[in-house]
């Protein structure tokens, strides 16, 4: 769509919920969108969200409100989230449910035909709307359908099967577009736009096996980070308490299982021991994820009481009513049955925590603009909304709010720039950037080293999972950092073992791995420097939260010698931090 003026054109990278929401909002506002995605957008990772989306509607007469949702999100995030933005998100939530309802999302219903709500972790209210057991998939499809409608109307051009390589940033430090690579033809091209929104998701792949999709490498964030875009709160990685460990990935067992009455236990002295219910009588099995995860870790690693002495506990639904199992949990139970081959209705499921969500991300201001004007971020790719720990069913919500807000900001940004003449420098920047990216490809294709990118990745995953997840020690973090530096050095001796210029997946993966290594250092350094325990970040040597020193956002900036880190105050204008006890 070359006939669209640059000031009317926005590039959105990532076709998950946040990216599609931004696409729809901008298309409605009269902009043309070039939508880039590695996979057909319908196959994005948002599809994996199982449990639901939060909105305080108080349809069960429990006295729930957006204000309480806001407070619980802040409290659940251990006060690290910027409060004004979270408040805005919680207030908007019921409106999104209406919007999705109108788009035809098959939300589960009450017998009267209204949308039903379920309970999730970290709250005592029925606040979570859900569509069967694949809420994320259903929401994604609803937006995908609307975007397809815009595509037919010519308002959206999709570039599916394209990998984002870099932002094009001109001499005045303004983002003018992107470079991307076609994953079949391997051609590198540059694309211009008035603004670019990155909605590229989290970086679970850095940990090898996680509950994330294989496209969640954080590569785009890692790429722009190396171009001078700041990265915030990298050390906050959510580890979900209940997943099926697997060799190719860990498969999530939704929190909704516990929301609907599932119990976590292990054997102690020959008898079932419901340790979450014993330790946290108020919330029981529905304590927030970081707390449940640490409890399972303690049981397995410290007390050595894992099932069969292994890293596993039971997640049990065998006592639940058949109707609940059939109507509300069928889908998730089928996943277990399919991938493990045992029937969870009869035998308790064996689960263990797994890396699940990236709370940190690309640094953005309160309007979703990064430190590079014209470049925005939204969804799991940004760092807002969830602080040090995300509450269940808030991720989908943050995608909608972040998508809408970033679209609004992009629109305002372009309006303000309307009179501005196109920068002559821009064209030079495009050529230079595309050339640089082609050279990187050439380098990989001609490299005849001895390191296999997939083995390097496996090593990275192991070191990150072992040292930079649930329980963190400074000496181990230092060792992890050294190991990453070693891997970075070995990465230079890479051999993609494929010289073709057609669907060269190893080449693509090698490029992603380079960016993963860089982000791994940000995560590890951030964890090393934060000498406290807060949310998902837990150091036994510093078991308490230290608000005085660390009620701050970690901000990382790229330097060739490793991340430069500083701290920024958190917006706590609305709720004063208090101790987080469940």
């Amino acid at each position, binding site marked *: 769509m070359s006939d669209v003026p640059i000031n009317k054109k926005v590039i959105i990278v990532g076709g998950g919920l946040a990216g599609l929401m931004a696409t729809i909002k901008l298309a409605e506002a009269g902009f043309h969108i070039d939508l880039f995605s590695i996979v057909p957008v319908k*196959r994005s990772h948002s599809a994996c969200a199982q449990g639901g989306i939060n909105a305080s509607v108080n349809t069960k007469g429990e006295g729930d409100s957006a204000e309480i949702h806001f407070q619980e999100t802040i409290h659940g995030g251990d006060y690290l989230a910027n409060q004004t933005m979270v408040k805005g998100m919680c207030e908007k939530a019921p409106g999104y449910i209406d919007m999705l309802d109108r788009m035809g999302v098959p939300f589960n219903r009450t017998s009267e035909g209204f949308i039903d709500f379920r309970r999730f972790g970290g709250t005592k209210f029925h606040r979570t709307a859900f569509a069967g057991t694949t809420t994320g998939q259903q929401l994604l499809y609803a937006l995908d359908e609307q975007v397809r409608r815009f595509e037919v109307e010519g308002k959206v051009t999709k570039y599916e099967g394209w990998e984002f390589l870099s932002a094009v940033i001109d001499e005045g430090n303004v983002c003018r577009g992107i470079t991307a690579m076609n994953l079949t033809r391997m051609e590198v091209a540059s694309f211009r736009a008035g603004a670019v929104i990155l909605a590229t998701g989290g970086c679970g792949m850095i940990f090898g096996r996680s509950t994330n999709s*294989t496209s969640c490498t954080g590569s785009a964030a890692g790429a722009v980070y190396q171009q001078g875009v700041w990265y915030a709160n990298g050390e906050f990685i959510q580890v979900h308490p209940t997943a099926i460990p*697997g060799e190719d990935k860990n498969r999530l067992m939704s929190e909704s299982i516990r929301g609907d009455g599932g119990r976590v236990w292990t054997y102690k002295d020959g008898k079932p021991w419901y340790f979450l219910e014993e330790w946290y009588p108020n919330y029981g099995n529905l304590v927030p994820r970081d707390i449940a995860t640490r409890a399972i870790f303690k049981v397995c690693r410290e007390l050595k009481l894992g099932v069969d002495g292994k890293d596993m506990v039971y997640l049990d639904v065998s006592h639940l009513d058949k109707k609940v199992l059939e109507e509300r949990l069928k889908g998730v139970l089928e996943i277990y049955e399919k991938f493990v*081959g045992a029937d969870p209705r009869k035998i308790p499921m064996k689960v263990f925590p797994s890396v699940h969500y990236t709370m940190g991300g690309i640094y953005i201001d309160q309007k979703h603009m990064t430190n590079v004007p014209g470049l925005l971020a939204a969804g799991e790719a940004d760092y807002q909304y969830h602080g040090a720990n995300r509450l269940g069913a808030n991720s989908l919500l943050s995608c909608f709010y972040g998508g809408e807000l970033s679209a609004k900001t992009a629109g305002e940004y372009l309006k303000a720039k309307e009179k501005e003449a196109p920068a002559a420098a821009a064209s030079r920047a495009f050529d230079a950037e595309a050339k640089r990216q082609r050279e990187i490809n050439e380098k990989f294709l001609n490299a005849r080293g001895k390191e296999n990118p997939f083995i390097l990745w496996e090593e990275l995953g192991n070191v990150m999972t072992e040292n930079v997840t649930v329980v963190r020690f400074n000496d181990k973090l230092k060792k992890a950092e050294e190991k990453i530096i070693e891997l970075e050095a070995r990465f230079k001796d890479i051999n993609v*073992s494929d010289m073709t210029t057609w669907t060269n997946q190893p080449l693509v993966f090698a490029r992603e791995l380079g960016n993963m290594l860089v982000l791994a250092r940000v995560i590890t350094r951030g964890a090393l420097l934060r000498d406290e325990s807060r949310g998902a970040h837990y150091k036994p040597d510093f078991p308490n939260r230290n608000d005085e020193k660390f009620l701050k956002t970690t901000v990382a900036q790229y330097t060739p010698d490793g991340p430069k880190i500083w701290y920024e105050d958190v917006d706590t204008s609305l709720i004063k931090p208090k101790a987080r006890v469940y």
Partner: protein
Amino acid sequence: MIKDKITIKIKRQDTPQLKPRWETFVLKYRPGMNVITCLMDIRKNPRTVDGIKTTPVKWEQNCLEEVCGSCTMVINGKVEQACSALVDHLEDPITIEPMTKFPLVCDLVVDRSRMFEALKQVKAWIPIDGTYDLGPGPKIYPEEQQDMYAFSKCMTCGCCLEACPQINSHSPFIGAAAIGQVKLFNAHPTGHENAGERLEALMTSGGAQDCGNAQNCVEVCPHKIPLTTSIAEINRQITRKLFGLFKK
């Protein structure tokens, strides 16, 4: 017998123009393996059984938990999602081939864009007035919701097209997936607005009439979507439309 090795035969093709070839790999067996784990093993050490160095096998994947629809392949002759194809349930040697009903891109990668084009053709969306705050959608009862959800789970994976004897280069048949979506959107109170147009789309060449009722689609669908029911239901709606009984 406890097996310690598994044999994988993969049909490979570097580009659409080149001829396909078979490569055999022998891997160490571990409990809980699936076809994706096998492919991941191979790319870490791409050597055939004869010790010949080869390139890593190319395939599509993303979620690995059967909700994204990426990793559809023909495994031991049948189409399925590679991520949920457990090695323990497969006969050795395991043969892996790309789907045959879509243009081949490379190795196990095929181009399924015809399925997304079909969704455009049948207007597979709810024609909402905009995403502004316009209040809630129409009331929907639990049974209706359950019915819609069954169809709304379609992940455009292509299994139903691959297994369909009516999908081939001599037939323009649109395939079961898109027909299921027409049933879904026609059932929605707002979606019903375009119901007639959707039916018209399915009355053109390659439409619902080209279904041969082999009913393989419903057998191979990973989510057991009642696709054959939707085809018959659409036939009924078209019949009603022919006799002027279909409102809209």
